[in-house]
């Protein structure tokens, strides 16, 4: 046994450990990584909402109208807005991950550029979708 790892308690800890301590410095890359997972979980809840909306098609027209009324309320629209952004963020972030899987864009400069692109596209597409929604209403 030439080398042994130091016991865990005496091992020096990185000041950039998660969860954030006083010295933790947020980085775009890690924040987007966590957001990708968080939006994925949020979209799971959105899938429940979608199923509820679909099931209301099998009930009376008034049942469906009640669901539509809830979704059209301030709280409902807030949920849908969050869902729309989560959907676009997870979509573009997912495409970024698929590109990484091919071995491209993994250097720091590219990762930051693609990261900001994902943020910008998710916001723009959310706005476009909502403007279109109000237009078609």
């Amino acid at each position: 046994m030439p080398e042994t790892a130091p016991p865990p308690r005496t091992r020096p800890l990185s000041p950039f450990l998660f969860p954030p301590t006083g010295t933790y410095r947020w980085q775009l890359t890690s924040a987007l990584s966590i957001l990708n997972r968080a939006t994925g979980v949020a979209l799971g809840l959105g899938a429940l909402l979608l199923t509820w909306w679909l099931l209301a098609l099998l009930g009376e027209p008034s049942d469906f109208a009640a669901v539509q009324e809830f979704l059209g309320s301030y709280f409902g629209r807030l949920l849908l807005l969050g869902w729309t952004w989560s959907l676009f963020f997870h979509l573009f972030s997912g495409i970024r991950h698929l590109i990484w899987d091919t071995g491209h864009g993994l250097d720091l400069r590219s990762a930051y550029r693609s990261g900001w692109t994902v943020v910008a596209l998710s916001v723009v597409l959310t706005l476009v979708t909502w403007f279109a929604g109000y237009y078609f209403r």
Partner: protein
Amino acid sequence: MALHHSKQRLASPLARARGLGSAKHGVGHWWAERVSAVALIPLTLWFVWSVVRLTGADQGTVKLWLSRPATAILMSLFIVATFHHLALGLQVVIEDYVHREGVKVTAMLLVKGLIVLTAAAALFTVLRVALGN
């Protein structure tokens, strides 16, 4: 030191490492998550576009839309791909954060059970509307 030359020592490092992964089929899971992701790119765009056009629609309008063959097919695929991708993704989340075996298995069964149930309900609705009562 002839005693140390056991059968284990003769196996190559690869042979000794094989089959020792956490789930024994990680590559299949990884691929399935990517394949469903790729399928969801066009399906999601189609879904968002469709829902936007249905903003504020009443039940009859939505039923008419869903009963069209193209809609029913794409919506079924969207539901299957979404819930499949969701199950794969949530499995990784649970594996990452839940380390007690009993809690992990329970959480996995609950999440996957709920996903299968919800997916079946959503799919049934589409078929019911598309194929008529």
